[in-house]
């Protein structure tokens, strides 16, 4: 029990934060929001997966990846390919010149299913592919970069270029990928309608549970010895190396893990939203994922979720009424977070929670004992 408490939840403060978040997304949102808004929240929560992956990789690992959109996209496209194949059964596509292949292939004069689409007929393969393909891809990039001690700025730029390449490739190869429109018109999963309200609600709860599980898993990693090494590497990489550790392998592992988390988010995105397109793969979404993590607090797993929710609620509210103002606000937010709140919302909470707690007199006794236990280390102009 104490293992669970310390390792998975991160002590008293971590537990309180985790329970609050779980209550918010599992109880408050479903009760307070209608079906449409709840589906919107499901979409925002799928962005929290790559945001959490960036907390691990960037906040704790010190390696900024501008390519989390790659993995989010790979996961999302994997799921979309399976659903599209099911939606393109010969009966559904009888009016096409080649029945049984996805509609966009038919429009682009393809007459047979490309070989790499074939295995996505199997749901088991698809689920495995969503987890494994992004990790293998991350492994390849990671080995090539980290083994040669390429890091920091260069790693950021290279991952950004890779996400650009992937977007251009998806947009350019319309017949194989659905092009700029992406893979749309997804209807059923094993004959079960995924567009119904019940399905949408179910996907919301699945997303929530997966998200909470990912948070627990990430916390486990961070509180383990590996987590300490990760922090040590971020602050003084050479010392860790001189102590006999293979720094590159640790970085590769955390990069692969972050890729896998992002891919889960992508797959849930496809299920919740009902389509996948290259506009969730490229440079702009990848950087937005970084800002979610940064606003929430780059050292806080739970903060990343709040960062996601806050920015996306703001974006929806603003772009409905003042689309022009939104970009100014977003730009200003980037600058403000970097210049004034490098630890984001979580940092603000830490700095000011003491005052709040003092005012709430009777709760004080509950919190004050363990204040420093699970407080994430301060960021000190590192990288």
């Amino acid at each position: 029990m104490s293992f669970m408490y310390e390792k998975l939840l991160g002590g008293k403060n971590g537990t309180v934060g985790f329970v609050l978040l779980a209550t918010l997304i599992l109880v408050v949102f479903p009760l307070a929001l209608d079906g449409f808004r709840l589906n919107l929240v499901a979409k925002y929560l799928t962005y929290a997966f790559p945001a959490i992956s960036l907390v691990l990789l960037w906040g704790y690992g010190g390696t900024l990846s501008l390519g989390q959109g790659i993995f989010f996209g790979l996961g999302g496209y994997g799921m979309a390919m399976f659903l599209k194949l099911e939606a393109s059964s010969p009966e559904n596509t009888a009016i096409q010149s080649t029945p049984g292949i996805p509609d966009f292939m038919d429009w682009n004069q393809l007459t047979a299913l490309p070989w790499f689409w074939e295995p996505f007929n199997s749901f088991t393969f698809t689920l495995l592919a969503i987890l494994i393909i992004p990790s293998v891809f991350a492994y390849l990039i990671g080995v090539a970069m980290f083994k040669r001690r390429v890091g920091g700025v260069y790693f950021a730029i290279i991952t950004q270029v890779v996400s650009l390449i992937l977007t251009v490739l998806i947009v350019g190869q319309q017949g194989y990928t659905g092009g700029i429109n992406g893979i749309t018109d997804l209807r059923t999963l094993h004959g079960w309608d995924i567009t119904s309200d019940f399905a949408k609600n179910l996907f919301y709860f699945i997303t929530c549970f997966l998200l909470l599980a990912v948070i627990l898993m990430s916390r486990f990693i961070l509180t383990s010895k590996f987590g300490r090494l990760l922090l040590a590497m971020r602050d003084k990489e050479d010392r860790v190396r001189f102590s006999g550790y293979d720094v590159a392998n640790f970085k590769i592992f955390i990069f692969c893990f972050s890729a896998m988390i992002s891919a889960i988010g992508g797959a849930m995105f496809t299920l919740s939203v009902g389509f996948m397109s290259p506009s969730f793969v490229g440079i702009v979404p990848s950087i937005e994922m970084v800002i979610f993590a940064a606003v929430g607090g780059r050292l806080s797993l739970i903060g990343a979720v709040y960062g996601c929710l806050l920015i996306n609620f703001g974006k929806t509210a603003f772009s409905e009424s003042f689309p022009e103002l939104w970009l100014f606000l977003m730009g200003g937010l980037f600058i403000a977070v970097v210049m004034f709140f490098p630890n984001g919302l979580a940092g603000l909470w830490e700095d000011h929670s003491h005052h709040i707690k003092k005012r709430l007199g009777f709760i004080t006794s509950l919190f004050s004992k363990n204040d420093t236990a699970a407080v994430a280390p301060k960021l000190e102009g590192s990288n």
Partner: protein
Amino acid sequence: MGGYTSSELMAIFAMQGFAGISLFSVLLLMALGLAIIFGQMGVINMAHGEFMAAGAYTTYLLSTVTETYFPGFMPYYFLVAIVAAFFVAAALGYLAEWALIRHLYKRPLDTLLATWGLSLIMQQAYRSIFGAREVSPALPDWLMGSYQPTDMIDIPLNGMFVLALTLLITGGVFYLMFKSSWGLKVRATTQNRVMSGAVGINTKKVDRLTFALGCGIAGVAGAAFTTIASTGPTTGTLYIVDTFMVVVFGGAASLLGTIASAFSIAQAQSILEFFISGSMAKVFTLLTLVVILMFKPEGLFASKVRR
């Protein structure tokens, strides 16, 4: 490459080669500015493309003003516009360094986020001021037309002009960086900031001017860009990733490497574009670069500066 005779192939290579030279010029001018800012100062300026757009919009404004009030001055305005583009972009850069960048020198990854925010703001400002539609200035007559050495080869004059401008600016940057006393200070500051400060170099002033110079060159790139394509609010973002690749591939602190890599990237892309689609040409070029960088992370010309 079946279906083409050898003389046709020669013509294709020559024409695509010259088309590539326009791309080369813009990429090189962009990359020179970035190589100074990124290579010398270690700042990742994601807003670099927006400084280029600032130059392009300055040119557009000047052309509109000249056309309306001083039509007789039309043939010469472009030369003034280049200078104006430089100073406008440099002034914006000076301001950005003062307000933003100078606080972040110790956190290179954070400069990336902050300048991305800056680029969003600048893009939206362009959209609010100039509208979402792409604009292009009226070019003087002497930039129009083309030069035809043979029947099959057709070389546009604006490309030649931009190339000449690029060579001039490149020469100027080389002189500034390697022959002037200011360049000496910049290089000294890069190598050892503390020591440079100790021998009496005002490193903060050097930083600010270096950043302004890099942005100013981007502004000139913008002026040159208007002769090739029209300018929109998001024009800058289209080139920023390619420009970073040029700098990284060339070797961050090497100006010679920047030239070589701008040339090879622009030519590869332009010649490939004729045989396969534009998007696939871009994929191939970038993919090749990524693979090369995986084997040779320090770029074409390794820098001698310690990381």
